[in-house]
């Protein structure tokens, strides 16, 4: 992409939109920094993108699209504020930013974007609000798109975003990257949001789809951005985890869009080079010492992804990784996954002992993967009647249609005598 020859457009409006939209988070962040007004920031970012769509097909894409867009957005902000007859001092602040932005400090837009990410993911906001605000302000999705992705009404999402921004303003949530003594825990808050978005795309909790690509690709893009801005090992771990899952997604569903279990997937459809790159990135992070939960989960995913055939899977290693994970983040879901790994290494009865112990605690009541896992282990242990009962319990709890259909096929395949 370079300057157009006189009279010849290099790209069309659609291409211009794609390039401009990528910078959405950077523009919004810069405008929030300058004006403190989130709605104004979005309005001006939108205006800048629209001007890009008009100008770039004619003039060509600028060498630094982010700077062009931010400058355009700032000019718009000055106009709007002037019309609102805002105090002179604020106008001066906004105008002053223009001169800062022209210099070689190309890192400045990055820092603001990192501030934006941390602010959107502040723990004083509900998880729902954090997810919505991150997707709107950093990723640039519209409220309609976010509403569709999470199966809520658009007006619900609009209201959620409105309240979140109002709270940020009214409660004075600071626009900054947290200080060093808070960074690790606040980074966890950010990673939790990104992972939730990814999971909602990868394994939707409800609805009909086996996956929602828009969410997984946004989560991946945000995780890459985060690693670029803040290359902490856990951030790298989360990115590696997402990459390792996504690189295998072609094998996860069959031609009819139905879910295929891991041990039956056609591994030739996995993106091997992408898996290898993710594994290498993960190794580098782990080498920095004290791998945290996301690195451990990524290591588990890497065990699966690097096995050429299901039979080559190192289940002992996976079980050991789950034990380490459980020591860091104890909880019933980790324990359930550990049970599966143990069953593969030591046989279904060993796994069933763990699952049955979990069932008695009641912590996973209502979670369809508990009876589903139990059913699978019972099936492998040859206890088909009990397996059928457990599959029926799982089907009753499964909210996602693709998951239901998969469980129904397992039930049908049992054909208990």
């Amino acid at each position, binding site marked *: 992409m370079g300057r157009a020859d006189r009279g010849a457009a290099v790209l069309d409006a659609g291409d211009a939109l794609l390039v401009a939209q990528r910078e959405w988070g950077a523009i919004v962040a810069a405008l929030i920094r300058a004006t403190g*007004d989130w709605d104004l920031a979005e309005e001006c970012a939108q205006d800048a993108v629209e001007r890009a769509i008009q100008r770039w097909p004619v003039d060509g894409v600028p060498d630094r699209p982010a700077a062009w867009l931010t400058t355009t957005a700032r000019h718009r902000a000055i106009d709007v504020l002037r019309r609102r007859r805002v105090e002179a001092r604020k106008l001066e602040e906004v105008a002053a930013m223009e001169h800062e932005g022209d210099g070689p400090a190309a890192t400045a837009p990055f820092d603001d974007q990192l501030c934006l990410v941390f602010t959107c993911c502040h723990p004083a906001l509900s998880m729902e609000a954090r997810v919505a605000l991150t997707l709107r302000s950093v990723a640039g999705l519209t409220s309609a798109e976010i509403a569709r992705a999470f199966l809520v009404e658009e007006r619900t999402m609009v209201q959620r975003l409105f309240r979140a921004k109002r709270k940020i*303003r009214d*409660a*004075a949530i*600071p626009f900054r990257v947290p200080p060093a003594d808070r960074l690790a825990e606040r980074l966890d808050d950010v990673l939790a949001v990104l992972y939730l978005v990814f999971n909602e795309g990868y394994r939707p909790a409800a609805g009909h789809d086996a996956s929602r690509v828009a969410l997984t690709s946004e989560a991946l893009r945000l995780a890459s951005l985060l690693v670029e801005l803040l290359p902490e090992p856990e951030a790298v771990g989360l990115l590696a985890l997402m990459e390792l899952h996504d690189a295998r997604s072609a094998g996860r569903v069959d031609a009819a869009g139905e879910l295929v279990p891991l041990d039956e997937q056609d591994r030739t459809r996995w993106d091997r080079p992408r898996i290898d790159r993710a594994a290498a990135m993960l190794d580098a992070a782990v080498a920095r010492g004290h791998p945290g939960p996301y690195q451990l989960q990524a290591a588990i995913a890497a065990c699966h992804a690097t096995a050429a055939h299901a039979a080559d899977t190192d289940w002992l290693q996976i079980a050991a990784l789950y034990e380490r994970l459980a020591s860091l983040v104890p909880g019933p879901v980790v324990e359930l996954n550990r049970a599966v790994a143990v069953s593969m290494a030591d046989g279904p009865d060993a796994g069933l002992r763990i699952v049955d112990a979990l069932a008695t605690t009641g912590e996973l009541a209502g979670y369809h993967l508990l009876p589903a896992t139990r059913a699978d282990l019972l099936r492998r242990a040859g206890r088909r009647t009990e397996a059928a009962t457990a599959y029926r319990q799982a089907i009753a709890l499964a909210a996602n249609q693709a998951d239901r259909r998969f469980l129904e096929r397992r039930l049908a395949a049992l054909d208990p005598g």
Partner: protein
Amino acid sequence: MRYMLLICTDPEAPAVDESAVPDIDEWVEEMDERKIRQLGEMLAPSSDATTVKVRDGRVLLTDGPFAETKEQICGFDIIECADLDEAIDVATKHPMAWGGLIEVRPFWTPATPS
């Protein structure tokens, strides 16, 4: 930026190791010294409260607090902080955050023009 800390009891809070819980006098002293704490008082128990409503010109009195919740307000502090992070930090150091709960409510400010 001003916030009100609504200090509340929480009968369902799990037991804590008392030696780990911050000391209230130390909290008051620190927050007074840092010019964070503007005003604060313990309140009498909620059973001593009277709730007042005027409806259709009639005064309606209830014996007790307005909300029949397990958690009850037992005190308040008005604090002045740079931002919510600082206010949360201040609340975290208060002993009642450990054995009870604390609501951190920003003071109302006129909305910026939009």
